[in-house]
């Protein structure tokens, strides 16, 4: 064991040969523990292919942490740590650590609740307080999301448990509500028939649950409808785009007006509404350019609503 003496003298350590051998064994245990923990994680990963991604991650971590923990404890023992002393001090340490890590402990417990509740899983698209993204992982302390603009969002598990989460992936079909406005002059029976036929023609739109048409009421500038159509979850976005395009095209073809917001000026019940007419478009354009102001003749042609009330 001459080399041990050389190492001791080189490091100027006041430790015995047995202590040094113990430290070396501890080092070997640590390295072995890391290697075996990784091997165990890979083996668990292979053995749990039938499970969900969430369950696989949970089992993989539990197995690898267990193996690494056992080897780490063995390494501490080889290094000369006495566990009876550690356990004796554990009460004091627990109080100190407890005060220092209230938030972390809360997050860990919340993380366990999240995993047990299974309301979210890795790969789900969720909305947490307005942040929408794909769940990358549910760790002990936090849940990580990747937003659609590729930002990584870390949300503490405590927040995840206490806030409202919307999961877009959990159910196989989804509804899209299209708000449609039509002019007051339109024949509403024809409008309703046109909307339902458009939904009927679109193969992405589910026949059952059947499309639903709701008259939302009289708006300021239009009569408002809601066309609710269902689609397979994966087709939801495509249906949303297509049905909007098809309603616009269908209305254009049938001459159904989708009105812009507009205001009618009306003086009261005893007078007719103000007539509005564009008398001279060319003059109007001339007035819009610098130096092209209205002539007295233009002023006389202005609609009544733009003239002085007197």
């Amino acid at each position, binding site marked *: 064991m001459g080399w041990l003496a050389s190492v001791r003298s080189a490091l100027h350590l006041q430790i015995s040969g047995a202590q040094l051998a113990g430290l070396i064994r501890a080092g070997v245990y640590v390295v072995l523990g890391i290697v075996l923990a990784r091997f165990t994680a890979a083996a668990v990963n292979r053995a749990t292919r039938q499970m969900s991604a969430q369950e696989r991650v949970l089992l993989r971590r539990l197995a690898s942490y267990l193996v690494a923990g056992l080897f780490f404890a063995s390494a501490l023992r080889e290094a000369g740590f006495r566990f009876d002393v550690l356990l004796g001090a554990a009460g004091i340490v627990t109080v100190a650590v407890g005060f220092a890590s209230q938030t972390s402990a809360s997050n860990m417990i919340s993380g366990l609740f999240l995993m047990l509740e299974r309301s979210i899983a890795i790969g789900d698209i969720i909305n947490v307080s307005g942040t929408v993204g794909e769940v990358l992982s549910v760790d002990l302390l936090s849940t990580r999301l990747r937003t659609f603009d590729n930002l990584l969002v870390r949300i503490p598990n405590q927040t995840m448990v206490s806030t409202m989460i919307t999961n877009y992936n959990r*159910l196989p079909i989804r509804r899209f509500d299209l708000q449609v406005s039509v002019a007051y002059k339109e024949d509403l029976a024809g409008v309703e028939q046109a909307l339902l036929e458009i939904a009927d023609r679109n193969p992405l739109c*589910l026949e059952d*649950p059947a499309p639903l048409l709701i008259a939302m009421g009289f708006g300021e500038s239009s009569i408002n409808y809601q066309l609710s159509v269902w689609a397979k979850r994966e087709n939801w976005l495509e249906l949303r785009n297509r049905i909007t395009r098809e309603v616009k095209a269908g209305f254009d073809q049938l001459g159904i007006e989708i009105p812009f917001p507009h205001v009618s000026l009306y003086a009261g019940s005893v007078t007719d509404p103000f007539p509005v007419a564009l008398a001279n478009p060319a003059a109007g354009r001339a007035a819009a350019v610098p130096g092209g102001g209205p002539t007295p003749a233009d002023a006389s042609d202005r609609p009544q609503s733009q003239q002085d009330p007197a």
Partner: protein
Amino acid sequence: MSEATRQAQEADLQPWWGESPLPLGRLRAWRIGPYALWVRAEAREWRLWSAARGDSMAADLELATEPAGDAPADARLTRIGLVSVDPRLSLRPALADRDVVVRPDIPVLVPPGARIELYVTTPVWVVVRAGEGGPLLLDEPSHRLSDTWFGPDTLVGELAYAIRTASRLELAEVPRRPHRAITKLEVVNDGRDALPVDKLKVPVTGLAVYADASGGLWSDAVTLERRPQAGEAVASVSSGPGVNGVAAQRVAEPRVATGSRFTLNAFGRLFGA
């Protein structure tokens, strides 16, 4: 439908499936009802264009014709790369890749203790391979069916395709189309009250496809049986079209291998109640 019309429809049919050689670098076109397909084999890749043409009941049939120009620009192009291309093309019909929910235009009422025979036609999928048993190149519906949900609510159920049909009770009334397979459905009502057949699920994924002598397509016959016990129904499949006088040859296997009596479950999962 008159007998003359039916004979004319049958005369227009001919087998469009099977294997055919394809000259390298030359475009060939198929038209199977409303489904149009253009194929060109290159030295190291297959190019396939497909598109919908005409209405869903179109009866056109053109096989391996040489088109004047290129495939149309609006056709969907699929490229399949291979180390070397064996220029043989195989076309096969297959039934839909999800079960089909049939809604008769006018519901049929089956009295207790009675049975009826319905005939429905469903569009087939065109399965294209590089030679029989070769790599799969394309598996597309000859006519895109509408999606639907079949279940008691939006939480429980399954996705299916929807077909509205006349659900004819007379086989002679069923129109013959090159891209549609006829399925004979026998509905047996052993329940205590009348059974309205306004929606029923045909488990087409478990049915094989057959062809008769005139080139018409059929599927295995299906029996949907309502049991006397409340809420129970069973679906069973008979091998072959199940129609007297129809000698049919099996041309495609079911997509999902199941037993002949493969569904014993809730009544609502077959009849949509």
